[in-house]
């Protein structure tokens, strides 16, 4: 049996799941002051009694990291950057705790300038004087050769200092994003470490030795104890829980779109052949672009409580929101009120909704009924337009080979899932899109179900350069010598082996190691008209998805 808990902004939901069947569920208000108290409250109702002893794993998603960043409850961090030439340092966003030091490697990971030990020692002394206990070390192209980052960290090492290294957090290229990712990882280190301690105590109350997992931004899980090193991976696990919830409560296998219609905004997510899409570079949090692997969502400014106004050139809906819908005592007409008047939703005080819509109807010179219908249809068409734009964006993502340009996968949604908010809107949006719609089962706790059933995900990036005779797997801090005849298939094999090992250490069960190669390229390196080696690039991942069905559930 699995205990899944989704700590959301408003509610904390918990579910007990066995063999993909929902056994019990609960919903409590989230206590913002103490997330762990919400975990306890939500799970108490489920784990009292005999069920507790059958719990084999606990999986939680938390808004803790996101909140810490948004609310600035972060550590002071000294950033030590090996920038090398290129973008001007001013463009990287400096503050008084940022240090630019000598040393860099080029695009192939070949050192072009060495680090200066004295300079780093002096920085170490200075940040000690400043009483900064967290440091981030990031080098340009460190994912191609992490050695200088490692050397720098070694000099900065001190028992009272925690150091985050850029190359460990992602194997992707993008220096500014690597800096942001490393900074955030260092900045939430303490608050996250405290959280981990509390969750351990919470788990111990349920039973001894139950493995605990947390959900990452990419919709995959990681063992709590492992997550301490890279807490930044747990940001945005709220939206990830929502998307995993859709997988857990539908039998999706085709291209699809899912909506979570909230009060202020609607979140759009996209699935290709039933697999949720990932952000191409990484998630953006609080305006900071990162390299954190995360599920793709697009938030638009139309929701159930959006302000509806009758302007000269027609209706406007959103992006403003001024409190709740009129039906619940709000001051302005909203799509929710229109749905009630139109007779597709049946909640609250009908008269209040009618009064609000009537004001719009007068301005539009139409009957209240017609105004309500018009508002519902307009809301649906606004959302449908945004869905079409999102799909176009996904399909227009640049590609770099002729094969992909001519024959690449085009996402064409066959079905619309409305997994949150007013289900009454679903048929209107689906009609506009010209596809069927579906409301997932266990709608109200689907996030917690998604959390409970998510598998462990991981990714590794392999760069093999046979001219240099070197293979680098940045995320693992691994640099290995390779022979001249090392091939693409050798690189894939190495990547799979390293990924398998990594995933198991993160808590994956053997039956959930669904490994796929997402990138494999091999280039002949020719210098002065002679082949001097091969440049091989491989990415392997365990894609986001549900755990395999098996007896132990």
């Amino acid at each position, binding site marked *: 049996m699995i205990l899944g808990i989704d700590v959301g902004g408003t509610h904390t939901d918990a579910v007990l799941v066995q063999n993909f069947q929902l056994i019990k569920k609960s919903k409590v208000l989230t206590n913002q002051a103490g997330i762990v108290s919400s975990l306890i409250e939500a799970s108490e109702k489920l784990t009292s009694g005999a069920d507790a002893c059958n719990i084999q794993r606990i999986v939680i998603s938390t808004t803790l990291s996101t909140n810490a960043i948004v609310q600035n409850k972060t550590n002071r961090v000294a950033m030590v950057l090996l920038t*090398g*030439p*290129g*973008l*001007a*340092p*001013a*463009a990287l966003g400096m503050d008084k705790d940022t240090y630019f030091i000598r040393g860099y490697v*080029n*695009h*192939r990971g070949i050192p*072009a*300038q060495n680090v200066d030990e004295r300079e780093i020692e002096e920085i170490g002394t200075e940040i000690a004087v400043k009483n900064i206990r967290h440091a981030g070390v990031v080098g*340009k*192209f460190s994912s*191609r050769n992490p050695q200088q980052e490692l050397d720098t960290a070694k000099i900065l090492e001190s028992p009272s200092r925690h150091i985050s290294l850029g190359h460990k957090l992602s194997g*992707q*290229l*993008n*220096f*500014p*994003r690597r800096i942001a990712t490393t900074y955030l990882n260092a900045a939430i280190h303490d608050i996250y470490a405290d959280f981990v301690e509390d969750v351990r105590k919470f788990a111990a109350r349920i039973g001894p030795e139950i493995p605990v997992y947390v959900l990452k931004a990419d919709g995959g899980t990681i063992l709590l104890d492992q997550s301490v090193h890279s807490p930044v991976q747990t940001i945005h696990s709220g939206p990830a829980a929502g998307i995993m919830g859709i997988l857990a409560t539908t039998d999706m296998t085709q291209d699809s779109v899912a909506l979570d219609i909230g009060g202020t905004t609607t979140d759009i997510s996209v699935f290709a052949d039933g697999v949720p899409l990932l952000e191409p*570079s990484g998630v953006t949090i609080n305006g900071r*672009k990162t390299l954190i692997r995360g599920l793709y969502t697009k938030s638009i400014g139309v929701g159930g409580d959006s302000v509806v106004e009758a302007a000269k050139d027609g209706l406007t809906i959103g992006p403003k929101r001024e409190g709740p819908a009129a039906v619940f005592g709000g001051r302005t007409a909203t799509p929710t009120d229109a749905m009630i008047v139109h007779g597709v939703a049946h909640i609250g005080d009908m008269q209040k909704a009618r009064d609000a819509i009537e004001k719009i109807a007068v301005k539009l010179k139409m009957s209240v009924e017609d105004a309500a219908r018009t508002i519902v249809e307009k809301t649906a068409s606004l959302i449908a337009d945004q869905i079409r734009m999102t799909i176009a964006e996904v399909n*227009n*993502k*640049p*590609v*770099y*080979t*002729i*094969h992909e*340009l*001519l024959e690449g996968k085009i996402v064409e949604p066959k079905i619309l899932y409305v997994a949150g908010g007013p289900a009454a809107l679903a048929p209107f949006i689906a009609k506009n899109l010209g596809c069927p719609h579906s409301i997932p089962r266990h709608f109200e706790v689907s996030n917690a179900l998604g959390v409970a059933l998510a598998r462990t995900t991981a990714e590794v990036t392999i760069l093999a350069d046979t001219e240099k005779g070197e293979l680098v797997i940045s995320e693992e801090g691994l640099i290995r010598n390779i022979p001249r005849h090392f091939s693409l298939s050798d690189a894939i094999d190495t990547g799979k082996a390293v990924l398998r090992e990594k995933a198991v250490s993160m808590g994956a069960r053997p039956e959930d190691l669904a490994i796929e190669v997402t990138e494999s*390229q091999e*280039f*002949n*390196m*020719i*210098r*002065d*008209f*002679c*082949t001097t080696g091969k*440049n091989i690039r491989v990415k392997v991942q365990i894609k986001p998805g549900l755990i395999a069905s098996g007896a132990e559930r």
Partner: protein
Amino acid sequence: MSDKTKKTGLIFFPAFDWAISPNHPEREERLLYTQDQVFEEGLLDFPNIVEYKPGIATYADVNRCHICVPDAQNLTTSSHLISAGGAITAAQKVLTGEVQNAFALVRPPGHHSMLVAHGARGFCNINIEAVMVEYIRHTFGVRRIAIVDTDCHHGDGTQDIYWNDPDVLCISMHQDGRTLYPGTGYIEDFGGPNALGATINIPLPPHTSDEGFLFALDNVILPILDEFKPEIIINSAGQDNHYSDPITNMNFSARGYALLNEKLAPDIAVLEGGYSIEKALPYVNVGIILAMAGLDYSHVREPDYDERRIRQSPEVTRLIEQEVKNVMTLWKKKKNLKKQITGSAAYVRREKNIYYDTDEIVEKQIETVRVCDDCGGLVTIESAADTGKRIFAVILPNGCCPECRKNGETFFDRVNGAQYHHVYFQDRQKDIFIVK
């Protein structure tokens, strides 16, 4: 963001699955390290830099500027149509105002492809700038266009296509033809009889460094552009003037390239050659993108950059100053040249021997242009290649005058088709292309 920033479109298409042949400079690896550098610098995250997927050019797009023998289908592959399509996408984004300027970082290149194309020369099958220019004229009605070719090799194909067009200014700045492929591009090559001064060549001596390039820019290119007043400036942006390029002998740097693009301020830049794929292209491309987007490029620098080592000699400086003076003297005389050259002739002939190094074809061509004061002039071309193909083409220019049109249509009607494999009629004004 400061006020200097511009919204810049980037069409990046490295064609990682295409090469002329496995060991050819024009191979899969060419833009690999450029991609790495552009990604690592995070350039695509800047709010004023937008990346677009390239479109695919159509055969009709190709037929607006080329006479392909036997036809466009046979002369192009997907790679060429995507490369030209990328240039067209760049133009679309700029001309519709979606961005202020755009850089098509695409391959394969095109500036050695001439009006008549029997095959590939200088790694080029079709002229991607010319395909783009004709698309711009056809779609957006733009008349005056300047192409500044900053590739190290003479932009002989582009020059050939616009030789008789007074509305398309082709300026090529390149390593002296006596020392480098294709061996042309001398100051005296100044345009056809109706388009004198619309072709400008600035041959530079080997080992010219930043100083020399910028001197030619300031003292020839910018003053001539000022006078010509183009509606659009295109940089045919080769990157093989770099000091590390393996097949040329110049000493230009990444910073120099960035500064050149800042000063030239092209509306559209299209990548041409450049084969120092590891030591030059990553830095040159980052420099150009930053300069076009109005961002600080002062920290862009090759790891092995040494200003003293690549600085041009006083002798080179002296030669460049002389070249610049010669070009400007000719430019100032351009109005009086026509009478001198044409005399009382109604038609002017030009005979050309063209070698296609990539496909090893030899072509003999006779180009005849009608001397005309009202338009670029009717052009006819008779061409025979050692592939056995023999063709005749009638080309009516943009803004074709009634007299040239009447003559051209008559030629096409009366030509003895039995002598040729194909007879082509290209009407650039009415966008008509007929083969018989």
